[in-house]
């Protein structure tokens, strides 16, 4: 099992962003979590990827119990977010060299060269990241997340702010990630993009998973209705 979460609660001050969430995911599977803004999707990704600790509940990712074994897990986790985690005043190569050294990646120069070619940025490797378009920055953030060849990847709204062309390029790159035993969890509120590559889907509303199904068993139109039923029913926080 790649991910096992039981009774997860996460509070910010006294506000529960996640409320008793349970989820399990087998190795090599791709789970997309849909949900409206404020559903707690980003908080879930942050807890699973060790960025924040759980307030309550059992969280096990890649065999590591969190938060106790977070240091061990970080070596195996890659995160792609709508925030790129890239330093704008460094070049693409400097950014990747920095993160590669932090992850102690062997043969770093070769790895950087290969990844920059994969994301189509080798021609601009010595340009400052602040001169990149949003789509280029997002592609570079994929290279950053893949530097240490993680076996578990978390994608938090990776399409946010991208135009159609950049979205398509990102989709092509993301398709290459779903290989072998790599486990992926993606959050999005875009049904079309979310359903495209995953094996399983879930709907998160008000800090809980309210729906879970294999994507093969889903009819897209029916799923859309299911999504809006859940979101429409539970969207009001004061209900």
């Amino acid at each position, binding site marked *: 099992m790649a991910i096992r979460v039981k009774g997860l609660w996460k509070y910010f001050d006294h506000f529960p962003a996640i409320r008793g969430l349970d989820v399990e995911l087998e190795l090599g599977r791709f789970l997309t979590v849909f949900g409206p803004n404020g559903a707690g999707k980003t908080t879930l990704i942050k807890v699973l990827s*060790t960025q924040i600790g759980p307030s309550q509940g059992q969280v096990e990712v890649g065999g590591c119990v969190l938060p106790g074994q977070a240091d061990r897990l970080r070596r195996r986790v890659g995160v792609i*977010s709508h925030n790129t985690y890239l330093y704008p005043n460094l070049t693409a190569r400097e950014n990747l060299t920095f*993160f590669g*050294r*932090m992850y102690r990646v062997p043969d770093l120069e070769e790895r950087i060269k290969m990844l920059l070619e994969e994301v189509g940025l080798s021609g601009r490797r010595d340009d400052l990241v602040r001169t990149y378009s949003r789509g280029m920055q997002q592609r570079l953030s994929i290279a950053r997340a893949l530097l240490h060849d993680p076996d578990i990847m978390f994608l938090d709204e990776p399409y946010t702010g991208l135009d159609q062309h950049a979205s398509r390029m990102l989709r092509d790159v993301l398709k290459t990630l779903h290989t072998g035993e790599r486990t992926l969890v993606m959050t999005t509120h875009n049904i079309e993009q979310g359903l495209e590559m995953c094996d399983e889907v879930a709907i998160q509303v008000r800090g809980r998973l309210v729906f879970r199904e294999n994507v093969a068993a889903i009819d897209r139109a029916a799923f859309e209705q299911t999504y809006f039923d859940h979101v429409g029913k539970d969207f009001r926080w004061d209900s």
Partner: protein
Amino acid sequence: MGFLSQAWIIARKDIIGELRTRETILSMLLFGFLVILIFNFGIEPGLREENLVKPGVLWAAFTFAGILGLNRSFIAEKENDCLQGLLLCPVDRSVIYLGKFFGNFIFTLSMGLVVFLFFSVLYNVNLAQVALPLGAILVLATIGFAAVGTLFAAVSVGLKTRDVILSILLFPVMVPVVLAAAKSSGRVLDGVPLAGAGLWLALLVVYDVIFLTVSIMLFDYAVEE
């Protein structure tokens, strides 16, 4: 690769970014220069107690200019949410703290050296005679300043009023450093050998050790959301 070399990778990244923009160091230098200049106009020429005032001017300029740099040190990490990317790296939080501390130490020390130079010109200080002892005091004071400042900058970076909060948090805790640095540099400017300020130097050393240790221990809580 050891603990310190990983911390140095973070500091090096900050230095490369700063050399490219020079935003932090230039604003620190300009502010430090202005503080010294304004005090120079404010103090009556030929004042008998001028020697008592000089160290205060020097360390006020150092503290006010230094706080500008501390404020900026974590703002760069907030852009594109880089701090989260840094926290995801498989290193102990103390490595991240030390990396940011090294960067702040280097920027503040560089600013301090240039501010000392302005000071020596405007206040007729024979730098050749006092450069070494003043340099030693500067290094000790900068360690304490950067140790506490790095921790508080991490605490305040997520707040809208971070500039004010950082000052409110930092100034009271910095009192022993400013006091010890001003007293010991006052002795040096009076021509007393550095050994004559032994107690004040000891206070600086003890402060540095305690606050560097405490800050390393608390940094994990400072960056927790």
